[in-house]
């Protein structure tokens, strides 16, 4: 089987190389070839230090890290649905229902995004790269389960075109494409992205499926208990509800060194800091909420683990990462508590800090240069004496 495939690929290859019939599709062909087989090309001259961790492996690791949250999300879609309609269901019925809701969204996200990526790679004569693998998985995970598929397609197209390709493609983007897609939907079609009717699939009318954040934004206080929010049996986007599943992913990301622990830690620290500050003010019930509740509700953990740590859009310097993460946490909690129009502050605060990340880096580097210059001058003086 493998040999046949290899043979087929080799046979069709001349069509796609220069001068061949489909030469303009070269990078598409190459993408499929390197997807199927490990490239056997080696460098010819000099010695090169190679790291095994290339873009492909990085992306696949993140996708694997997303799996616990995704699988839990699929189960939770079914669980929330059957809970809302008050029916008993077996485990496989729950999973089946969840798959029925989740798979189309994932497929649409990948098809739309990859089509645009491939088209741009052809036009620009670039190689197709793996940058979309993670984004394509993240987009469904931050959306409500009942989202109309054409909206997913429009939002994905917008995110890839405006959020990524306009800046030059993978690695050049200023803001996180997955969050761009979510922000697009949030502002373009608020009726499917907020309120208490969208977070549970096929929800009966009389049932209120408000997320904990939605309850709080409307001035309510009867939250699910903390333990339910930790394991994730609450309405919400597909991937965001279970803190445990997200933590599993986080452990993998930290162990492989792909995500920055500085950012994760500082986001959590910043959120806690702001939560404690609000506790100290305590002007209304939302402010009096114990600070750790902010970690359990909405997309705080998901954002901290998978969105804020995106190596392209985060700050690059170590000091910068601390500042960047801290401000994300602070702004997220601040937006949640002070502005009930945007129940979920995490998305907006990460996008905001994405825009500021280059500036933070610039300041950190400039400060470092100044510091070292000063030190050099002092040394010069001491030597001169």
């Amino acid at each position, binding site marked *: 089987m493998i040999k046949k495939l290899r043979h087929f690929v080799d046979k069709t290859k001349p069509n796609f190389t220069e001068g061949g019939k489909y030469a303009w599709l070269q990078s598409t062909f190459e993408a499929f070839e390197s997807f199927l087989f490990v490239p056997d090309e080696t460098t010819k001259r000099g010695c090169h230090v190679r790291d095994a961790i290339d873009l492909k492996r990085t992306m696949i690791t993140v996708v694997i890290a997303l799996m616990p949250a995704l699988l839990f999300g699929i189960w939770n879609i079914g669980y929330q649905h059957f809970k809302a309609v008050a029916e008993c269901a077996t485990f496989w019925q729950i999973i089946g229902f969840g798959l029925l809701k989740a798979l189309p969204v994932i497929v649409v996200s990948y098809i739309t995004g990859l089509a645009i990526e491939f088209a741009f790679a052809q036009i620009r004569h670039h190689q197709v790269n793996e940058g979309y693998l993670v984004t394509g998985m993240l987009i469904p995970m931050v959306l409500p389960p009942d989202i*109309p598929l054409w909206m997913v397609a429009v939002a994905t197209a917008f995110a890839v075109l405006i959020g990524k390709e306009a800046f030059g493609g993978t690695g050049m983007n200023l803001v996180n494409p997955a969050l761009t897609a979510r922000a*697009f939907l949030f*502002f*373009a*079609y608020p009726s499917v992205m907020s309120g208490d009717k969208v977070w549970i699939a096929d929800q009966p009318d009389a049932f209120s499926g408000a997320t904990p954040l939605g309850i709080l934004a409307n001035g309510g206080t009867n939250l699910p208990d903390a333990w339910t929010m930790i394991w994730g049996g609450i309405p919400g986007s597909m991937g965001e509800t279970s803190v445990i599943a997200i933590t599993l992913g986080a452990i993998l990301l930290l162990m492989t060194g792909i995500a920055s622990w500085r950012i994760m830690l500082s986001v959590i620290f910043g959120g806690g800091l702001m939560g404690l500050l609000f506790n100290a003010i305590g002007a209304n019930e939302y402010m009096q909420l114990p600070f750790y509740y902010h970690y359990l509700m909405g997309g705080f953990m998901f954002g901290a683990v998978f969105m804020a740590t995106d190596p392209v859009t985060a700050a690059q310097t170590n000091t910068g990462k601390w500042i960047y993460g801290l401000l994300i946490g602070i702004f997220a909690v601040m937006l949640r508590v002070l502005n009930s129009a945007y129940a979920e502050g995490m998305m907006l605060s990460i996008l905001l800090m994405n825009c500021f990340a280059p500036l933070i880096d610039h300041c950190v580097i400039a400060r470092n240069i100044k510091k070292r210059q000063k030190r050099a001058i002092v040394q010069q003086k001491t030597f001169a004496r």
Partner: protein
Amino acid sequence: MPNVKKLIIEPLRKTNPVTVLVLGICSCLAVTAQLKPALVMGASVTVVTAFSNLIISLLRKGIPSRIRIIVQLVVVATLVILIDQFLKAFAYNVSKQLSVYVGLIITNCIIMGRLEAFALSHGSWESFLDGLGNGLGYSLILVIVAFFRELFGSGTLLGYPIIPSSFYEAGYQNNGLMILPPMALIVVGIIIWIQRTRNPEMQENNQK
């Protein structure tokens, strides 16, 4: 008059005041949520740029250079007030929709830009054409942006519903982001992107 065509056509394309010089962005953002105000705004700005260019060009030899900005502002402000009164008299609804933005034409960078860059150093007929061309270039972008924003944001064009109701029944929804001001800038950005991709000579070389 060999360069009549050039003076009118160039500002529509290669020296477009909005997409190339990036002037007049603020009003582009404010009045393009619907097509009708955009058309009226475009026409008003075209009239003001054309005639202020003409008048300043006629006066240019008598204006002391130290107070030229004040003189220019007096001319522009007069024209804008005329337009404002005209709109109030004959197109009251649109004038109400445009509200302060008609008055703010005075501050439109395109007008001052053309006065400073062109009218002060060129003959009156040429200046008039230049003003006309730049006004039209501005209007063109305004109309394109407003076309997309109204079509996708409200599903209408000039107030008439375009997207059939069967679409809405099938689950289509108007895009609320299109109505919000940021989308105007994004649409302008896309126009700039397309324009530069088609004219590679317009791309600056930023490689260090």
